[in-house]
């Protein structure tokens, strides 16, 4: 019973990771950029949602949409200012800029409102605990899992079935050739950032509702975990991010549940490294041998 409860705990935790990892892996897959600022966009989303609810007094859905819109704009602005000038630079140079952007967002936020946490109002989403054979499942965690699944399917659809998705993939393989097809590379990348960041914003609001506490540095750890989840699933592979996130959540819960909560991240990383050694391109990545 406890085991099942731990699995349930792990899946709800993992859905949150997955939710953040989806946007992460999308940007990552298309632009090949480790966007370390993703976790901070997530944080901004969370705060936008919070202020929308507490100051504008709106409900859940308007707050969610507002956060997503604000984050989409933020994502595009970040891309235009900080990443676009570096299109031809090494990826590691962009990574450093991304770290810079991440610090900037965090500390501007702290400068503006301090580092202390904020508590999300608990009344936004109806909340019920389902008890099944002694296992407690909160309606919110079902909601999160559902949201992640829907978003995953939606993203997968966008990237693989729509015109903009095809443009995104073309840009990711070969931006110059994509330009020759008439694709506006800058707009496509902006669209990628907008979608990815909007997802981060949504995740931020949902995180706030589920965990209550939000603060300016809240994005660092989930951002890192989402990065891990995205790599675990295979870079750029959307269902991979979902599975990677869930797996990470379940591993963490099981380790904590066994009483080794301090070893939690350690075990998660050991498993991660082992998986990578046996599947060097992540769980879902095809390990294509470079054609020589």
């Amino acid at each position: 019973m406890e085991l099942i409860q731990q699995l349930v705990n792990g899946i709800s935790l993992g859905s949150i990771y997955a939710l953040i990892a989806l946007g992460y892996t999308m940007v990552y897959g298309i632009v090949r950029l480790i966007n370390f600022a993703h976790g901070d966009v997530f944080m901004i989303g969370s705060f936008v949602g919070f202020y929308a609810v507490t100051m504008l007094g709106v409900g859940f859905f308007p707050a969610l949409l507002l956060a997503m819109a604000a984050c989409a704009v933020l994502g595009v602005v970040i891309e235009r200012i900080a990443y676009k000038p570096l299109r031809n630079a090494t990826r590691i140079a962009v990574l450093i800029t991304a770290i810079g952007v991440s610090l900037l967002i965090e500390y501007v936020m702290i400068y503006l409102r301090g580092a202390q946490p904020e508590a999300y109002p608990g009344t936004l989403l109806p909340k019920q605990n389902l008890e099944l054979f002694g296992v407690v499942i909160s309606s919110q965690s079902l909601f999160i899992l559902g949201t992640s699944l829907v978003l995953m399917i939606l993203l997968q659809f966008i990237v693989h079935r729509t015109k903009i998705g095809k443009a995104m993939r073309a840009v990711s393989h070969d931006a110059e050739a994509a330009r020759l097809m008439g694709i506006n590379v800058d707009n496509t990348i902006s669209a990628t950032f907008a979608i990815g960041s909007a997802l981060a914003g949504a995740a931020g609001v949902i995180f706030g509702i589920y965990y209550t506490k939000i603060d300016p540095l809240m994005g660092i750890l989930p951002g890192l975990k989402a990065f891990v989840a995205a790599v675990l699933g295979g870079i750029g592979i959307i269902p991979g991010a979902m599975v990677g996130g869930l797996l990470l959540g379940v591993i963490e819960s099981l380790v904590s549940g066994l009483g080794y909560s301090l070893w939690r991240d350690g075990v998660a990383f050991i498993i991660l490294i082992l998986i990578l050694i046996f599947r060097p391109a992540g769980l879902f990545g095809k390990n294509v041998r470079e054609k020589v």
Partner: protein
Amino acid sequence: MLKVEAIDVFYGNIHALKGVSLEVNKGEIVTLIGANGAGKTTLLKTISGLLKPKSGDIVYEGASIAGKAAQTIVKHGISHVPEGRRVFANMTVEENLELGAFLRKDKDGIQQDFAKVFQLFPRLEERRKQLAGTLSGGEQQMLAIGRALMARPKLLLLDEPSMGLAPLLVKTIFRIIEEINESGTTILLVEQNAHMALSIADRAYVIESGRVVLSGAASELQASEQVKQAYLGGH
């Protein structure tokens, strides 16, 4: 139809094109020959908007297109088959072709062009769902050309379409180039395989270290001693 007027192109400090001028008339096949690093690819990239000329002008159907973005130039009817094929490796043949028609909205026309491309390259129809990266070199070249045709270009820029291809395929490709031309598309062709290129072209330019050094009717150049010495392997 296309008029390149004294353009200069730089890569950083490298002066790759030095006052190059050339002209392509409607319905022609014009070929550009020259040694490695002469600047042929650079010229095509400048025409299609991937590079911006520092000075000079490019006039296409009466309007200047110099310095415009590549995606705008495609809209005007210039398609570029880049050097090294550059197909989208992780996408299927079909998706690659669809991307060729990215800017078009006419569903019916696109369907017609699909049929046309498959008629030119039956091999591509067989491989419709295959990932482009797993095609052989010749098939990828066909795909690259087919993809460019999907934009219904009036002017097709071809950069070394025969590079790395087996002799049989080289012949096929050249035959197809002539077919495309006959169906009304103007062609600017860059080739190392000067024999073949000159034999299908109407006119030719010889480019050397970023300068046009010779031009004229293809047959004339083919007969010229100078060209023979430098590009056709003597005799």
